[in-house]
């Protein structure tokens, strides 16, 4: 118990060290690249060790059983809004900063620090000689700090701050090679698209704050009473359901769910290690993590909320997987694969299994980071070539990269006993178990598609005919070592969910009892079969081909997939015709109506001025005549017409009665 406390109260150091590293690199060692990278890696490795220490603490407390009931919080008060208590809370609003330790955050800490460390080590080789080497590591440190802070957040506001910070880091790193126009555009696109989701999240946070008066996760969790669940917001929709929908918009943007997924493939303009870390393993799963964090909210909301989450996740999974079949850019294939797997995770949460979602998050982080880094190794070896049809024959030249990449492919395809098999299996069994047979079918089909396109990638790039103009060579050890380590975790990562107790033994929603669940071979069996079927089919179709046979067989379908269902074009069309149209109308309104009123007032004054200017002849005699006319009129009016004048003019010339 004492040992556990000791490790937990130092958890704040885990994000603090990368922050320190960011500041040191940014202000002091920017001119010495080697020193910068050393500091950054030292910081993240120390964080990794601390994270492992914390995880041991979690294991020591009865594998988190106690922490599930009572998460450990270490908070510093940041802001206190005294005065009238907010919402249902009796106390004044407190905004805290702190660390929250429970099995969920402990698992995330481990994954994030591990992948971040490996990616940074890998980057030493990948970014070697780049002009922005120090800047790159500064951003990497900033990102690590933000992501770890997000994971450890005790309340929604703190989470939102770090949520925005990771978004900023993503923007900075996608646009890292800002001299490339495509990178600039991609960075802007990513930033703006995720901002749409962030707005929904912020609204949801405000809704929560308004009603509950606190943003602390634990306090919110304990407020989920039946009366609260019964509260109606508007039109029969319960308050919690509305809030849950709003909050879910955040993950839609951040985790690239269907309508807002367009930024993630473009984000591949950044350096490949960045794609591995941010756009595969960590930042994009922040949305999934957020849903898991406030899972009680979705449980309290009407079933439609979770239904919606599950459907959207399932749709995104199959939607992105189908696009991935027709892509030729190695990184884009991986990006769509990421989208598909994110959809899988969201679907898992939606069908009611937090455990399965987080399990898949972890295993996916391992094998997707592995494949991205492997792709980076290939791109590095081929001098920035990214089209898989220009590769081929790499298997013989790049043994380590090839082997580890193959492990990644098998892991994502769900071949036992690799990691992907276990987590995917848990999702599928959860879908079936909780009464979503359609989603189960979608998941199964997506699993086959996944196996198909990943094998396609591997067969074409590594086993295809060798190209004479390529002179590939194996990457240096700083790049292959992370690959090997990640390959190791891609194999053993899934064993956490071995049939005896399942992953729920470690991670499960707050307040729920651990229920051991045996392996469901009725689910696992078809899963293995479709996975293997996908691999074999893909091997048959693509092995030894120099161009895409699917394109020749189904040109129309292929074209639609190749163009990603024209979603980008559709958005462009909306912006061009509808947004610009509204803009034009408003512009017209501004120019002719608003400005017209203002200019019109000036015009009236000016016209009256130039009209009355004619009266000013400058001749004194004219003035005198007018003066006398007025004098006579006034005299007569005052002398003989006082009553009438008074009636006409209440201002009463010469006083009145």
């Amino acid at each position, binding site marked *: 118990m004492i040992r556990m406390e000791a490790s937990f109260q130092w958890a704040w150091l885990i994000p603090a060290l990368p922050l320190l590293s960011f500041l040191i690199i940014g202000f002091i060692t920017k001119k010495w690249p080697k020193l910068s990278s050393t500091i950054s890696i030292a910081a993240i490795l120390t964080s990794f060790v601390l994270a492992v220490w914390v995880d041991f603490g979690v294991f020591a407390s009865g594998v988190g059983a106690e922490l599930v009931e009572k998460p450990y919080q270490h908070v510093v008060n940041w802001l206190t809004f005294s005065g009238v208590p907010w919402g249902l809370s009796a106390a004044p609003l407190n905004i805290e900063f702190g660390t929250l330790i429970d099995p969920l955050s402990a698992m995330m800490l481990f994954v994030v620090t591990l992948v971040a460390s490996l990616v940074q080590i890998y980057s030493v080789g990948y970014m070697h000689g780049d002009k922005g080497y120090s800047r790159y590591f500064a951003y990497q440190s900033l990102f690590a700090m933000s992501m770890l802070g997000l994971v450890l957040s005790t309340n929604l506001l703190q989470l939102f701050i770090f949520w925005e910070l990771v978004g900023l880091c993503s923007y900075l790193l996608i646009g890292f090679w800002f001299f490339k126009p495509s990178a600039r555009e991609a960075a802007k696109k990513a930033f703006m698209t995720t901002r749409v989701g962030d707005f929904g999240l912020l609204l949801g946070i405000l809704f929560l704050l308004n009603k509950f008066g606190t943003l602390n996760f634990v306090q919110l969790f304990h407020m989920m009473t039946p009366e609260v669940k019964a509260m109606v917001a508007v039109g029969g929709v319960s308050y919690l359901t509305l809030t849950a929908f709003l909050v879910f918009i955040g993950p839609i943007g951040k985790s690239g769910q269907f309508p807002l997924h367009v930024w993630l493939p473009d984000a591949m303009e950044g350096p490949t290690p960045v794609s591995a870390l941010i756009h595969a393993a960590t930042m994009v799963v922040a949305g999934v993590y957020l849903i898991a964090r406030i899972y009680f909210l979705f449980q309290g909301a009407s079933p439609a909320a979770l239904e919606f989450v599950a459907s959207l996740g399932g749709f995104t999974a199959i939607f992105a997987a189908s696009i991935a079949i027709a892509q030729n850019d190695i990184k884009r294939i991986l990006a769509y694969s990421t989208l598909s797997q994110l959809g899988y995770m969201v679907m898992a949460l939606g069908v009611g299994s937090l455990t399965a979602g987080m399990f898949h998050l972890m295993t996916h982080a391992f094998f997707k980071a592995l494949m991205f880094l492997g792709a980076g190794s290939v791109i590095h070896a081929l001098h920035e070539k990214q089209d898989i049809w220009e590769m081929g024959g790499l298997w013989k030249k790049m043994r380590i990269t090839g082997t580890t990449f193959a492990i990644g492919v098998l892991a994502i395809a769900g071949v036992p006993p690799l990691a992907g098999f276990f987590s995917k299996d848990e999702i599928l069994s959860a879908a079936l178990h909780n009464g979503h047979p359609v989603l189960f079918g979608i998941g199964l089909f997506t699993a086959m598609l996944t196996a198909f396109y990943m094998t396609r990638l591997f067969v074409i790039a590594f086993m295809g005919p060798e190209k004479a103009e390529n002179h590939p060579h194996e990457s240096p050890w700083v790049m292959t070592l992370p690959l090997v380590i990640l390959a190791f975790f891609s194999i053993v990562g899934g064993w956490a969910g071995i049939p005896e107790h399942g992953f729920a033994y470690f991670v499960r929603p707050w307040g729920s009892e651990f229920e051991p669940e045996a392996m469901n071979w009725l689910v696992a069996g078809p899963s293995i079969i479709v996975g293997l079927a996908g691999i074999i089919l893909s091997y048959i179709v693509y092995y030894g081909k120099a161009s895409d046979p699917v394109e020749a067989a189904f040109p129309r379908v292929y074209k639609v997939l190749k163009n990603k269902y024209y979603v980008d074009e559709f958005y462009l069309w909306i912006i061009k015709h509808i947004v610009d149209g509204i803009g034009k109308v408003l512009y017209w309104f501004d120019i002719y109506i608003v400005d017209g009123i203002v200019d019109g007032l000036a015009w009236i004054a000016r016209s009256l001025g130039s009209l009355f*200017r004619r009266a000013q002849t400058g*001749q*004194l005699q004219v003035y005198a*005549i007018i003066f*006398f006319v007025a004098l006579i009129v006034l005299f007569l009016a005052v002398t003989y017409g006082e009553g009438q004048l008074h009636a006409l003019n209440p201002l009463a010339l010469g006083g009145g009665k």
Partner: protein
Amino acid sequence: MNFSLTVGLPHYLLVGAMLFCFGLYGVFSKKNAIAVLMSLELMLNAVNINLIAFNRFLWNNPVEGTKHLLLNGHVSAIFVIVVAAAEVAVGLALVISIYRSRLSANVDELDWLKW
């Protein structure tokens, strides 16, 4: 028409009014600045006639406690004459000055007040 041959205040006032209106017409419509000045003199004379007439027909009695007549109107008329003399002197000087710079003493050409 009830016109009495006895000369009274209205007759003098009427003469003054006619003189004043001729002067007014001259001031309004004469081009020559000297003519305008002359018309002004006509108007001032009309005023003087009125002052004297009022004094003559309305206030024609001694100051209380003295044997002096109350001649406020006469004194006012003298002051008007003083001011008129000064005005003619300055006015003529102005006209001459303007004439020297513009070679014209026409009032309708003097529109410096314009715009």
